[in-house]
């Protein structure tokens, strides 16, 4: 190559430029990480895009990029609207680029479009990775599982004193309408940028060294710019949060998405003010709970008192009739006794009356028997008298009759009438022939006269009648 063929630098640059245009006439969709980004006074945005090694440390490729202000205004708001992120260092983007070569500034990429979906996907993937790791380590919900004190009043604040969010928080908390008293200690911390990780972890460690003085930690960051969330999609911060021994509440200030730090925190609020409200709410809840408890105690006690009063009242109401019943039963019993005594007394009298009554009837019947006996005896006497008198008369009568018949039999007149005669000698009746001698004159008497005869002969037993 000789010197005559020399060209100017400009000419060279033009050759390079034209060659590039010819060689790379098209637009490309390039995925890269923003390593620098700044907006100049005229609204153009100058970036440096890089690609890192797999170790995420060493840079593999680097190039400048520009978004012209006319485009930038649109892209910026569109991107932020879609992703909730600002275009900032560390962000991975998918940009539609045209390669441009400027003789003065060299090679750069002119970005005409950025696909927010890619960034969202990248961010999500990063978050997912951190979440998966925390879960794999079994620490993801450790802070959530802590118990928040009933009254979280001693608050460690991890924030930056310059942040608007910090003063919002302090004002909201200390000037609460309930008049609750809170104690806050600020642990000055860098809340964005690359120092964020170390600063947050440092603050958390300091708090942990004095853990006995605190009920709760709040992690808050200024309100205003809704940017740079991704600083808290950070594994180390999230890990420290999970391992923190007291509940940690985040108020990092974003509307749409949660960072991993929010996810593992005990509680995440949208804003620092919301964190303050949460803390006030906790105390208020506790106070409400106390009020409810005391109301319950009061009500329950009233119920108990009322029941006891009712029970007592029942006893009191029972006491009267029960005593009266006892008395009236005793009265009835006594009346019963009166009747019983009258009845048994009368029964007794009636039974006792049987004896004289019985004696009376025995007396009358004995007297009747007695007089009947005497009467019978007298009647028998009459009968005997009759009988004996009759016998006496009969006997005498018989005697008389016998005598009469003897007299009749003995009457000579009767003998003579029957043909018998009586022979007499010298007036004397002869009963034997012995005194008769032959020639004796005997007088023989007949019933109608007598004959005197001379005995011619005598002899004994000559004739038999």
């Amino acid at each position, binding site marked *: 190559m000789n010197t005559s063929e020399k060209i100017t630098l400009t000419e060279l640059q033009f050759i390079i430029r034209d060659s590039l245009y010819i060689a790379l006439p098209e637009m490309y969709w390039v995925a890269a990480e923003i390593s620098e980004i700044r907006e100049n006074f005229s609204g153009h945005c100058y970036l440096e895009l890089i690609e890192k090694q797999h170790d995420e440390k060493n840079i593999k490729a680097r190039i400048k990029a520009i978004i012209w202000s006319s485009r930038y205004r649109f892209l910026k708001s569109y991107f932020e609207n879609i992703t909730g992120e600002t275009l900032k260092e560390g962000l991975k983007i998918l940009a539609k680029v045209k390669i441009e070569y400027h003789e003065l500034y060299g090679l750069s990429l002119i970005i005409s479009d950025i696909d927010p979906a890619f960034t969202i996907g990248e961010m999500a993937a990063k978050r997912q990775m951190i979440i998966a790791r925390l879960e794999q380590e079994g620490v993801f919900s450790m802070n959530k599982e802590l118990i928040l004190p009933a009254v979280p009043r001693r608050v460690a604040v991890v924030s930056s004193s310059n942040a608007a969010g910090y003063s919002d928080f302090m004002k909201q908390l200390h000037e609460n309408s309930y008049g609750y008293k809170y104690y806050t200690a600020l642990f000055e911390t860098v809340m964005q940028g690359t120092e964020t990780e170390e600063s947050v972890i440092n603050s958390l460690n300091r708090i942990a060294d004095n853990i006995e003085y605190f009920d709760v930690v709040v992690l808050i960051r200024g309100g205003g710019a809704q940017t740079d969330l991704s600083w808290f999609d950070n594994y180390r911060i999230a890990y420290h949060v999970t391992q923190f021994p007291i509940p940690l509440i985040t108020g990092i200030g974003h509307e749409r998405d949660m960072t991993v730090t929010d996810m593992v925190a005990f509680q995440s609020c949208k804003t620092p003010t919301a964190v303050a409200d949460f803390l006030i709410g906790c105390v208020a809840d506790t106070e409400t709970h106390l009020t409810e408890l005391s109301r319950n105690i009061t009500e329950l006690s009233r119920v108990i008192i009322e029941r006891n009063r009712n029970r007592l009242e029942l006893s009191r109401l029972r006491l009267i009739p029960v005593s009266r019943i006892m008395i009236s039963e005793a009265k009835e019993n006594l009346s019963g006794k009166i009747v019983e005594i009258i009845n048994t007394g009368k029964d007794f009298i009636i039974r006792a009356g049987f004896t004289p009554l019985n004696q009376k009837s025995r007396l009358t019947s004995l007297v009747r028997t007695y007089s009947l006996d005497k009467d019978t005896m007298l009647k028998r006497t009459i009968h005997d008298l009759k009988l004996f008198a009759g016998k006496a*008369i009969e006997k*005498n009568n018989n005697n*008389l009759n016998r*005598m009469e018949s003897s*007299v009749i039999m*003995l009457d000579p007149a009767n003998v003579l009438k029957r043909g018998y005669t009586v022979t007499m000698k010298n007036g004397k*009746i002869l*009963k034997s022939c012995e005194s008769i001698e032959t020639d004796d004159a005997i007088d023989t*008497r007949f019933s109608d006269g007598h004959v005197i005869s001379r005995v011619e002969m005598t002899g004994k037993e000559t004739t038999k009648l």
Partner: protein
Amino acid sequence: MSKKEFSFNEAVAEIEEILANIENGELDIDKLSLEVKRASELIKQCQKKLRSTEDEINSIFRELI
């Protein structure tokens, strides 16, 4: 015997005596007849007495019942 109260027992005794005398046969036939007559009379009187006593007693008993 009309004046003197008639005695049944005496009459019976007399009759007994008469009967004994008759039986002894020591009596004159005329006396015998007399004695027999006497005895008969006494018997009759006795019987009368007996009747009257009986009547008396009966009338007593009639009263008694």
